[in-house]
């Protein structure tokens, strides 16, 4: 049995060098919502990394034995070697479903990262310097934010001569830029008026150091949370673009949004063709949203009920 004293001391030691980040992580680990979100995302990431090993067949391969069974009024379900049966073109539905996770991960992560980098750059510039820099950057941001995000993504993607994965990433990233820029700018402004920035100024700390060391790290919290939530919307937007035919047209590449679009004509014949990609999109988006919300709570304990 440990005495109260030693337990207290262990607790003090544990708290000793714990940073805010470690503190937030500890809170995150105790939150079941975060666990569920993290498990979903973890599985999704694992599946997409090992997709070629998990998927029994190539995404583009057309199998004669599947093709032979296709009828206008029936598409075969599960059969030996093909766990979820055939898609509308005689390809292995299961393999395509698994391999598509890669496209989703790549597009979602890249679109969010690119949006984050440019958004942070713009937001930090506007928030740190204010004045006309702020005015110009924020008016442009306002214009972009005033257009519904999907509409904006569609317009940008439609500008491309030939739709491809790259144009989808660029379109979704551009939609994300103003969201991050606006969020960071607000947080930077709040930091500019904070006591510790005034205190740092009173010590003669250089302006760049104040922005980089004293303002930015304190303003990034909400942006990191937003990034997790934006991953979800990026995945949804990318899927929507493919669904509308503005994505990668290459049939060799499997993509959930495109699979969903193609399954439309066969809804009455085999609803599973639409059901599985839809569930996959929803689950992944849900996973990122759950983790994002939990992170928001963990970083800002005041917001907890």
């Amino acid at each position, binding site marked *: 049995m440990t005495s109260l004293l030693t337990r207290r001391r262990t607790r003090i030691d544990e*708290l000793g060098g714990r*940073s805010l980040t470690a503190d937030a992580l500890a809170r995150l680990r105790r939150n079941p919502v975060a666990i569920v979100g993290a498990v979903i995302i973890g599985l999704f990431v694992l599946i997409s990394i090992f997709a070629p090993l998990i998927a029994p067949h190539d995404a583009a391969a057309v199998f004669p034995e599947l093709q032979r069974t296709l009828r206008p009024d029936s598409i075969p379900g599960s059969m030996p070697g093909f766990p979820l049966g055939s898609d509308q073109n005689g390809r292995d539905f299961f393999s395509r479903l698994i391999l598509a996770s890669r496209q989703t991960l790549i597009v979602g992560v890249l679109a969010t990262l690119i949006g984050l980098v440019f958004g942070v750059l713009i937001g930090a510039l506007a928030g740190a310097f204010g004045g006309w820099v702020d005015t110009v950057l924020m008016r442009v941001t306002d214009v972009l934010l005033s257009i519904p995000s999907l509409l904006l993504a569609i317009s940008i993607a439609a500008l491309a001569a030939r739709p491809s994965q790259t144009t989808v990433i660029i379109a979704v990233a551009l939609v994300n830029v103003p969201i991050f820029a606006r969020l960071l700018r607000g947080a930077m402004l709040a930091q500019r008026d*904070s006591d510790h920035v*005034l*205190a740092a100024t*009173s*010590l*003669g*700390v250089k302006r760049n150091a104040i922005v980089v060391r004293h303002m930015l*790290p304190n303003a990034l919290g909400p942006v990191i949370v937003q990034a997790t939530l934006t991953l979800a919307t990026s995945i949804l937007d990318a899927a929507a673009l493919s669904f509308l035919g503005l994505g990668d047209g290459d049939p060799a590449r499997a993509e959930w949004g495109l699979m969903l679009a193609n399954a439309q004509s066969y809804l009455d014949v085999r609803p599973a063709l639409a059901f599985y990609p839809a569930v996959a999109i929803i689950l992944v988006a849900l996973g990122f949203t759950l983790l994002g919300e939990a992170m928001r709570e963990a970083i800002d304990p005041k917001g907890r009920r």
Partner: protein
Amino acid sequence: MSALLEVEDLKVAFTRRGEPDSVAVDGVGFDVEPGEIVGLVGESGCGKSVTSLAIMRLLPERGNRVTGSIRMDGADLLALSDKEMRERRGKDLSMIFQDPLSSLNPVIPVGLQVTEVLTRHRGLRKDAARREAADLLDRVGIPDPRRRLDSYPHQLSGGMRQRALIAIALACTPRLLIADEPTTALDVTIQAQILDLLKQLVAETGTALVMITHDLGVVAGLCDRVNVLYGGRIVERAERHELFRTPRHPYTHGLLGSIPRLDGPPGEELAAIRGSVNDNLPWTDACAFAPRCPRALDACTAGTPPVEERDGRLLRCLNPVGVMS
């Protein structure tokens, strides 16, 4: 001996388009000798914090007008470029603020915030700065300073945070330290410790201290000379003992009368100063304090009361306490 800091006719007005200027500091002037502890006392809104921010040139860039002169070693701080002023802040003059928690950067360990100043102004290398930082924390009485260097502000107690801030402010042994109500956010027991520490440190380093407070108890234990501010002007200035023994201005008198005394009869009612700063008259054609003053004469609202300076004592009153009228 020439003064370290000479503030002369300092005026700070906050401007707003379409509205008359609001004058926060209205011609304040005082000197600080090297190593001296000078108090700026007054109630909320009397301009004491604005004065200190003006000296540090920390007022917002826009929306205010600062006139007069603030000379340190003969150089007018108001005339320096932003860059020159940045070089001086933290090195020649520095400041500690009211709330020790919000004055520290929450995401950086305390040690880094100490070494930041050392590398900036004294050009120390990383490991040398770290050793020096540990020494500094030790000097301000933070136990186990080596370990505390890696602590984050939220892991320290209020008193320790203020000690850390003092260590940071004194890291480059500035010749002038401005303390803006450094004990207001602390427990009474800690307040006394922090004041003792400040007193001891400025005595050791020869740093002059401008102590801004509304607490006359703080002044009584610390300051060599005291300036009493009212409505943005100094209404009385005297050496500490003089001021407490014979307060001349009715406002000073009222402030001292409103402090509970241990040797007073039990159940004694405290004297209060009637009204609030909102009742002030403009200084331009009256004494701002007149509406609240128990000794006000008709003449007090007829024009600005003249400043009288005698025997190292400054007084701005037509009918001071201790004079038969």
